[in-house]
């Protein structure tokens, strides 16, 4: 009886781990596939106008740098709309000062909702947008000047409805968990999202995402009640058959920082997981035409929970195989999920080196050690976040726990040895 349970659970875990591996490594399947994940070279013209939404809340430390960088864009038709809260005078003051610096390009909008969330902030600005493509950025993003021109070309050449650019966490050196977090983003934006776009069901990121204004207004903007409004937007667009293009280019990726502490990471993850659950329960994805697509939707929305589950279940399975008296074949099957799990770890190590080379960062041996040793602890954190998300969703807590930013990614990449390792 126990043996049968171990057998079934092990096979299920093996399938989940193998699927994770497959999705993770999609971009590197062939050299052609890798080349196709980048932006195409633009043709030198600008066909669209952009409205770039920049919600900022208690982020006066990083806002100025972000806006100044965005003003260096080479595109000839864009506006920046900074959205601040009515209860946040410092940031509003800074935003108004920046608007005075470039009055034809920068505007400030104030969100007056009582309970604040990013979705409500964005929805406040939505009716005031003048551009035909809306882009969303976070207050701490470092945006490349050429990005808008490339996105413009992507919209025109691919007849896209949405373009998702790459986001990359850069401060891998800050702590053991930020290392793993950076790699997570690397795989997500370099590889997994492209496969999702190819399959036609994509959970968008909340940042460096561009969508046609008409389409956005037509589907009613962002959902103010959902904690993962970006994921929800992607699901609603996919469910209506909208075309999403993903592009990741090392030069033009938006650089961000990881949450400042493990607790913030934990809260951020809880929020995302709860958001995914909310999107699942909203059931917009049920509008997808085929059974296969709906299964894919279920699988995609359940991914964070799979990852969390397998983190604990693999050692349990092995423990049973070793300590409990089951037939030798069952014991060996209980070790089977270890094969794809270790391959995932091996590929993560390879990716860390790749990441270091692509971004000219000094990845040292100690970082690889931290990567490997940090794996079980990170899994525990993710699993705890998944469980807390389920608890919060079932007990009806839906408030927004904001992630604080300190600008750790604004340190120039070469100076990695100065900060804590």
């Amino acid at each position, binding site marked *: 009886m126990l043996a049968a349970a171990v057998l079934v659970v092990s096979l299920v875990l093996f399938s989940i781990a193998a699927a994770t591996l497959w999705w993770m490594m999609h971009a590197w399947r062939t050299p052609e596939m890798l080349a196709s994940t980048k932006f195409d070279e633009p043709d030198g013209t600008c066909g669209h106008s952009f409205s770039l939404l920049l919600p900022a809340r208690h982020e006066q430390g990083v806002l100025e740098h972000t806006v100044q960088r965005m003003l260096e864009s080479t595109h000839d038709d864009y506006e920046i709309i900074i959205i601040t809260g009515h209860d946040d005078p410092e940031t509003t003051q800074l935003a108004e000062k920046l608007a005075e610096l470039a009055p034809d390009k920068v505007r400030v909008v104030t969100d007056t909702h009582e309970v604040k969330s990013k979705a409500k902030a964005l929805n406040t600005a939505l009716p005031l947008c003048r551009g035909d493509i809306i882009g969303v950025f976070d207050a701490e993003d470092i945006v490349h000047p050429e990005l808008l021109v490339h996105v413009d070309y992507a919209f025109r050449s691919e007849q896209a409805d949405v373009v998702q650019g790459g986001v990359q966490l850069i401060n891998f050196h800050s702590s053991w968990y930020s290392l793993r977090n950076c790699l997570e983003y690397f795989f997500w934006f370099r590889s997994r999202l492209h496969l999702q776009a*190819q399959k036609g069901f994509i959970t968008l990121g909340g940042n460096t995402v561009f969508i046609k204004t008409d389409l956005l207004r037509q589907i009613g903007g962002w959902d103010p009640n959902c904690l993962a409004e970006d994921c929800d937007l992607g699901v609603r667009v996919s469910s209506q058959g909208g075309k999403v293009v993903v592009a990741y280019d090392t030069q033009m990726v938006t650089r961000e920082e990881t949450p400042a502490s493990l607790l913030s990471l934990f809260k951020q993850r809880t929020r995302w997981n709860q958001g995914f659950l909310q999107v699942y329960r909203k059931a917009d994805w049920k509008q997808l035409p085929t059974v296969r697509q709906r299964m894919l939707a279920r699988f995609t929305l359940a991914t964070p929970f799979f990852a969390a589950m397998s983190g604990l279940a693999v050692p349990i399975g092995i423990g049973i195989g070793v300590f409990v008296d089951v037939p030798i074949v069952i014991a060996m099957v209980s070790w089977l999920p270890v094969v794809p799990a270790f391959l995932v770890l091996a590929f993560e190590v390879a990716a860390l*080196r790749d990441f270091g080379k692509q971004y000219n960062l000094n990845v040292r041996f100690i970082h690889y050690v931290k990567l490997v040793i940090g794996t079980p602890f990170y899994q525990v954190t993710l699993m705890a976040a998944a469980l807390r998300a389920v608890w919060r969703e079932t007990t009806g807590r839906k408030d927004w726990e904001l992630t604080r930013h300190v600008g750790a990614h604004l340190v120039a990449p070469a100076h990695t040895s100065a900060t804590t390792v």
Partner: protein
Amino acid sequence: MSILLDPPVQRADVTRAEPRRFLGRSIDFWICATLVIAVVIVQAWNIADYPTVSDDEGTYLAQAWALQHGIGLAPYTYWYDHPPFGWMQIAALSWIPALIFHGHQLLVVGYARIIMLPVTAVSAILVYVLAKRLTLPRWAAALAVVCFGLSPLSVTLQREVFLDNFAVLWLLAAFVLAYSPRKHLWHHVAAGVCAALACLSKETALIAVPALVVALWQNVHHATRRYSFVGFAGAFILVGIQYPLYAVLRGELFEGNGHVSLIGGVLYQIERPGSGSIFASSSNSYTIFHSWLYYDPLLIVGGVAATLIALAFRHLRPVAIAAVLLTLVAMRPTGYLPAMYVIQVLPFFALVIAGVADRLVALITAYRARPVRWEQGARFLVVALIAAAAAFYVVPKWYHGDRTADTADPNAGYQAAATWVADHIKPTKNTRIVVDDGLWLNMAEDGFNGSHHDIYFFKLDLDPAVMANSSLPGPTADKWKDLDYIVSTPYLRQNAVSLPTLVTALAHTRVLASFGSGANVIQVLQVVPGS
């Protein structure tokens, strides 16, 4: 990024001609199919009667039989002599002879060789595909398959139930995958898995793995190189580690009191008494090497020569390195050299011979060639003359060797003994018979009651459980009296020297039936305690 597959971004637009198709399939398919059918027919003909039944074949088949009947990895205690994946594959294929042959007088080991035919067929196809992926032209790929499958050495050894034949299949598959034309990551990972499976079939495949790494190195793209190698190495290690994992889960990894161990098995293989230098005329290695030369000197000598030349060409280098490594290990004076070792080097010799032949033809027809009609004609004539000369030299020798394989019957004695025992001895629950593994499965089918009544002669003295099972009380030295019959074969007699119980038993027998004469005689003996 469209929902459909993107066109390659960095390649120029090339208009490719549609490859010609014949009856719906490509020319390659027809060439390959014809060659494989020819190879399989030549190897299948007379398969049960030639060559002589080898004790190792019987051992592997007995172990496969034990797997199928749920007894374990072997009929006796599995002592980690070889990783078990080889006879797992034999067990998986054993439904094929069972489908065709019925009647328990037939020599099982002889007819079970049918299992090797699909293995040879797949290996031959893989040789063709690998040759094409090495950029050899079709005729050279065909030549490689012919050398691989129709040489008398191959025809003799590939029809025997040896683990090396399975290892060759997986090794060839690994090479074919490493040469993936699209440089597909999962193909490279699969190459790692196949390489591990080759090593788990026969551990000596490990020798060729460095050549596989070189092949992979030549075939990765710089952008995905890191991932290809990590995936390959990771898959190889993670699949290969299942064998020590099995040992660990059974508590049999390290040596200890009262149990077999993986380390013990590995040490046994490494520390086996050497067969001596291949060049010293008194050594076992010399005898074995000359037996290979007896079957086909052309493939061996030609293969060695071609290997040395092939090292100079980049596209042939990986297979040449594999051949070099395997040859160097065979030449170790202190190592143990089994007769079946040459099986692993055959595909690589075939490939280098074909590759070097291709380079030779290219040299003759294209080196400083001028577009002058008579000169081109002369060059082709030279090539034709060389080909004809080679054919005149090789074909009669191969024909003679293959004809022997397809007509001679050295197993008549074994077959007769098996039939005689099946007809004349009706075993009861307690009847014990001692045989070599060539007849072990026949005795099992005749109804001898399990591995302690159908006794593999080596186990008489080397497996304590067998003696302990005897129903006689008293000291071990007297337990031979519990034996009822012995089938004495040349192999049994050669190896009896170190087995005291067997020697004692053999001294107290009378002959019931005798087949053949001289040193090759096979006798069915009854043990008579009183004499």
